[in-house]
């Protein structure tokens, strides 16, 4: 029974895809030619309704997920048709009218990146009561920039641009207490250097990072939708990237460790070179990441471990990925 279903599903898929691509290509060509005759349009309408009937008949054996997929394909075709109808019925010269689809996504994309702190507050879910650095640009940020009142052990960095974030504070006595981090979320950070301890006792999530250099040690590493990032990493599991490109990995620089525990975490066997790219689940090597060559790495003496004043722009242009 299930086997026959399987064949039916397969057959349906093939025939559906054939009619779909046929209809779409005909509609596309009509669209580019402009002013199609009513007969042609009626014919296509008929074929679409036949396709819909076929789908209804197949409901009995199609999984519901597939049904929804097919349904949305048909809807797309119908939409295309109605667009062509609308443009051909109006007497004016043919032109593309797509006001809505172009405009609606842009504010959504633009808002988080352009608007700093306060708009972001209303956009995102309730803000973390934990330690958070948000909406800064052209600044050198250290542990003293973090809210001191919070006892939370999670750290959030969002909306930073042209910043140096240094949370491996040399010289502090109770380093562990000050910078104990058990979860890290980093989002919407660009053109920045982020230096974190090798001792993060939990997982790290990076989202939407562009042109940055990042240093950290953690249990799990995940990076989504990022581009052009150098990651210096101490990790015992496999790092994950997804929808990323141009990501380079290197080991945690020993020179940034301030105490025994940090050195121990940084020098342990690290898996920073066994990255898994979830956008490239194939036997071939992923084109989206590589190992950062030694000559490309930041020199030990060049790390901006102490406040740099107004030279921040020079430092960034020198050290960030080109």
């Amino acid at each position, binding site marked *: 029974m299930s086997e026959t279903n399987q064949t039916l599903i397969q057959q349906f898929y093939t025939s559906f895809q054939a009619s779909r691509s046929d209809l779409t290509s005909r509609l596309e060509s009509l669209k580019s030619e402009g002013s199609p005759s009513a007969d042609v349009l009626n014919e296509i309408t008929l074929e679409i309704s036949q396709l819909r009937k076929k789908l209804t008949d197949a409901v009995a054996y199609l999984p519901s997920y597939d049904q929804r997929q097919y349904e949305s394909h048909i809807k797309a075709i119908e939409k295309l048709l109605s667009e062509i109808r609308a443009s051909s019925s109006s007497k004016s010269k043919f032109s593309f009218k797509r006001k809505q689809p172009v405009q609606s996504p842009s504010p959504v994309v633009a808002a988080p990146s352009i608007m700093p702190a306060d708009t972001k507050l209303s956009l995102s879910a309730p803000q973390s*009561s934990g*330690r958070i650095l948000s909406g800064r640009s052209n600044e050198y940020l250290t542990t003293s920039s973090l809210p001191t009142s919070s006892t939370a052990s999670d750290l959030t960095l969002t909306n930073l641009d042209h910043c140096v974030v240094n949370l491996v504070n040399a010289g502090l006595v109770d380093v562990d207490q000050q910078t104990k981090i058990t979860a890290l979320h980093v*989002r919407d950070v660009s053109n920045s250097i982020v230096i974190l301890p090798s001792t993060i006792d939990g997982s790290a999530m990076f989202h939407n990072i562009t042109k940055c250099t990042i240093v950290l040690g953690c249990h799990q590493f*995940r990076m989504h939708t990022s581009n052009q990032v150098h990651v210096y990493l101490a990790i015992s599991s*496999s790092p*994950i990237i997804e*929808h990323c490109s141009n990501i380079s990995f290197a080991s945690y620089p020993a020179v940034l460790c301030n105490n025994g525990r940090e050195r121990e975490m940084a020098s342990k066997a690290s898996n920073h070179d066994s990255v898994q790219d979830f956008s490239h689940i194939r036997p071939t090597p992923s084109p989206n990441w590589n190992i950062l060559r030694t000559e490309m790495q930041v020199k030990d003496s060049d790390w901006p471990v102490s406040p740099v004043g107004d030279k921040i722009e020079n430092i960034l242009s020198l050290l960030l990925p080109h």
Partner: protein
Amino acid sequence: MGLLTIIRKNRQKEHEMRILFLGLDNAGKTTILKKLNKEDISGISPTLGFNIKTFVHDRYTLNIWDVGGQRMLRPYWRNYFEQTDAIVWVVDSGDRFRMQDCKEELHSLLTEDRLSGASLLVFANKQDIEGSMTSEEICEALDLKAIRTHQWKIFSCSAVTGQNLLAGLNWVVGEVANRLYYSTT
């Protein structure tokens, strides 16, 4: 194999449950599972694909499927829906940015026909991290109260300390047992 063994085996088979662990990536699904099974949790990599664990809890054999939650893997979740008795939805309580995403994934999951009737346990994980959202806040953020199609309950828990994991598992197993094995218990 003696007769008694055969009877026992059959009896055990009757008392099998299939439980599906789902949730966004970084929620801690694999860690919870390993903790429940008393395995080492320090070197867990993000799940590429899925893990299966079978263990006995109460008088029931639990077949637990833990499927990776990375965005690329979510379309494959549907391959695991068949004959699921319970869904365990794991939430990273510290991930405020993705609560909306989490809510949408959960609610679209629950519209799936093949999951109708399955009990839903929501684990508000990572409570050991100070600054995490409470289970009440997560209940609100995920709009759990709107769920009418499934028996659900939320438990705050921590995979690292093991806090409340068993309580949650007990609830979901009891729930499924009442439904499936009402006559035999």
